């Protein structure tokens, strides 16, 4: 099976489609607003690329940092030029056509992103080592995007990371319908600074979320309390640029944001609340803190989840042990002074 729609996936499919697509499928099945799409499975990667891996990697030493980038670039060029069997190319084209039918669009713009097959997606954080190609249209562009994602398996950082940590055992690709985002960003269902699980931290910028995720802008930041359901704090970021669909020729462009829009918050308080509620629901669904990418559609004014993965920093910190009893805790109160300076 080389192509599977998201809605047919769940968490049992991690080995086939990677954590990202499996989670998207699971979220769709649970009723969350996720743009439709399909996964090009690890089986496709295996059929096209895996057989050549040993030969491709022969003579590459990940310790040799200086030479690694150059060699990796060569490998990627080779991967991008590998023959894709007709059967797989057709499956990708068919997947794309069905997506268009579903959306009632001839050539829906899609994002093509790599979805690594890791032993445990929660532990092996491949942030920054995954490739994303935005606003591709037409089956040819999509297939080209898929090839480039496959090639990204041989990024220097990814090679070095795997050499050190092991982990990824192949590559799946997620093809997801684009959200034409007015505002987008990331959301942690805890405060990443203090670790407070009663807070939801949101960062938001104009346009597609890539500028926020990639640190290209200083986003607005919002801290919302799950407990009191109030916006506890917010800070208006500079939001210097926004990434939007190119007017013609496909792809995206990054443009400056005019001063007036930069000066005001890009999310209304009610939108923060809607986002936080959605984040809290995802967190409840998985029973642990989540790191979520989201976008608000320009026309529909609806929030979409583009990705959800377990938060990995605070979730792994050892917890302060609970006291033996209330009395022991009270004793600690009476015996523990507070430094006054």
């Amino acid at each position, binding site marked *: 099976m080389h192509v599977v729609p998201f809605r047919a996936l769940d968490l049992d499919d991690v080995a086939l489609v990677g954590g990202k697509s499996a989670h998207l499928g699971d979220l769709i099945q649970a009723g969350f607003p996720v743009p439709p799409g399909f996964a090009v499975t690890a089986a496709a990667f295996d059929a096209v690329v895996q057989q050549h891996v040993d030969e491709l990697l022969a003579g590459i030493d990940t310790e040799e940092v200086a030479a690694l980038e150059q060699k990796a670039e060569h490998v990627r060029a080779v991967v991008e030029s590998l023959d894709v069997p007709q059967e797989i190319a057709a499956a990708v084209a068919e997947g794309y056509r069905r997506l268009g039918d579903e959306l009632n669009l001839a050539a829906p713009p899609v994002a093509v992103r790599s979805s690594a097959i890791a032993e445990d997606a929660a532990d092996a954080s491949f942030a920054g080592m995954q490739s994303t190609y935005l606003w591709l249209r037409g089956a040819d562009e999509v297939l080209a995007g898929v090839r480039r994602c496959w090639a990204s398996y041989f990024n220097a950082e990814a090679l070095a990371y795997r050499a050190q940590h092991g982990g990824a055992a192949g590559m799946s690709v997620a093809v997801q319908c684009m959200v034409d985002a007015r505002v987008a960003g990331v959301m942690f269902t805890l405060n990443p600074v*203090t*670790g407070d699980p009663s807070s939801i931290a949101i960062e938001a910028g104009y346009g597609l979320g890539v500028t926020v995720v990639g640190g290209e802008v200083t986003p607005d930041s919002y801290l919302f*309390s799950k407990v009191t359901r109030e916006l506890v704090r917010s800070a208006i970021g500079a939001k210097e640029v926004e990434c939007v669909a190119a007017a013609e020729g496909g792809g995206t462009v990054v443009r400056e944001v005019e001063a007036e829009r930069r000066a005001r918050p890009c999310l209304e308080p009610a939108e923060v609340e809607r986002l936080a509620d959605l984040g809290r629901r995802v967190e409840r669904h998985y029973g642990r803190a989540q790191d979520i990418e989201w976008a608000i559609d320009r026309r529909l004014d609806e929030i979409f989840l583009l990705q959800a993965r377990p938060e990995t920093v605070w979730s792994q910190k050892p917890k302060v042990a609970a006291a033996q009893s209330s009395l022991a805790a009270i004793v600690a109160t009476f015996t523990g*002074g507070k430094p006054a*300076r």
Partner: protein
Amino acid sequence: MTDGFRSPFDIETPEGAEGWEEMYPYYVLFDPARRAEEEQRFWFYNGMHFPEPMPAFDMITAESCYLSIGLYQGRVFSIPTVLGIEHRVVNGYVYITSNEVTDPDTIAQRLETFLPRIGFYYENWDTLVDRWQAEVDKRIAELSTLEIPRLRELEDEQELIHDHKLGSNYRLMTAYDRCLHLYNELNQLHFELLLLAYGAYLTFFQFCQSAFPDMRLQVMAQMIAGYDTTMMRPDDELKGLAAKALELGVDGTFAGGRTPEDVLAELRESDAGRAWIDDLESRKHPWFFMSTGDGFYHHHRAWADDPRLPFAAIGGYVAQLRDGTELARPKEQLLAERERIAAECRELLPGDDERRQFDEMLGLCRHVFPHAEGHKFFIEHWGTSLFFNKLREVGAVLAEHGFFEDAEDVFHLNIHEVHEALSDLGLAWAAGTAARGTLYWPPRVARRKEILARLAQWTPPPALGAVPEVISDPTVQLLWGITADRLRAWAGGAEAGVHGYAASPGVVDGVARVVRDVNEIGTVRQGEVLVCSVTAPSWAPVFPKISAAVSDIGGMMSHAAIIAREYGLPAVVGTGHATKQIKTGDRVRVDGDNGTVTILD
């Protein structure tokens, strides 16, 4: 002095208040003979309880409390890191310091005694609350019925000869002593359970703070608060009386700022009015022992003695009822919100151990809450109002014999001087001469009134002496909110704007009404922002009128904070100087989320 605040020995006496020291016992004054020791300590102004300069007699309220706090912390519970609280008077204002234990061996030793002793209290809480109540009731009953004898021309034949009673002069001195003892005993009881209740609060707060570092203290306090506290009862009675006025059709009598005397006079004219007065009489006891203050000053009279506040409140409630406003506090809604917040927190805890501890701590806090709130009515209001009224009777005897023009003047003598005056009177009466005090006291009382008026114009600095290394005393942290941040702010001098504790959430713009004294509370108009030095529980009736509350003094669990949360009003407490920085009529923004007040124009 190494670093820190001004030395208590460098504080100047305001002009015209020279000689203020003579009002107070020697042991509450800073003493140059132990200057080195005293100025190395951290003293903070206890404006939360003593926001006004102390009349000489009223120092008993501070003395009585610190007798008990130290007794329980230091000598009964053996709290490992803290002994008692010391107090001093500077220019008539009360400063306190907590006596910390720092030696690790002593701390370890005290810990061994501490554990079983407080364990017993928490394990037997309900029984001990019942025992406490019985002890308090007994003393209140005795104070209520205590006879203050008059000194007549001739003693009664039956009493002295046949019944063999003691002479009136002896009995007067004994009765005064008994008053003092009963008041002190009530104050011993005051802190028996209270400190442990605060210990439970603080433990819960610290637990929440470690689990939820972003969580505001007010949210934690909100989880604890109950809504049927004894302290709310007097206000509920006023609402009942307002409803009764409407029911009887006498509500028109309450319209438009008339005095209680005029209202009562009109009500006496009709059957319906008399029925309302009957209702008032049936509801009064004991709830009208509510003081118009916090129970630390003689001039904060009980509602029964100064009905202006309850009548003004009834008038306000009548007007609200006529407008169709629901007077009942939104209890169901508040309780549901409290449960929702607690359930959210519980769910967010990382594991079952934490959830078990959360449940236990929250359960304990809610269990001790009724006592922690309710004790105030019995001690600070009922007991203290009775005590001061007995002293008025003593004052009346002294006035009758020429010591004062007015019985109230007795409050310008300190507790020891009243002893002297009664000895003087007893001797003179027995001897059949005029007492020396008739010449001695009138000029002194007049001078002391003048001194107090001068001292009232003076602003006490928030802290004196050295910056402490640690703050161990849980009550100091909880009630006065004294933290490292606060100390830094104080040491840094005046900050721009008005900052305090975010006691109740929300942001409101409104017109300020500065109220220095409870007697001015009638001036508050609908929708105004109340700016006061400290709000006492008896101020509750004004809360439905106002849009936000700001106080100079107070912590997260202070009364203003609790009531404001209950009414859902933004509140900023413990600002230090709001009543001096803000003027009536200023437009202000009260930010109860961040603890700031901004003067808009």
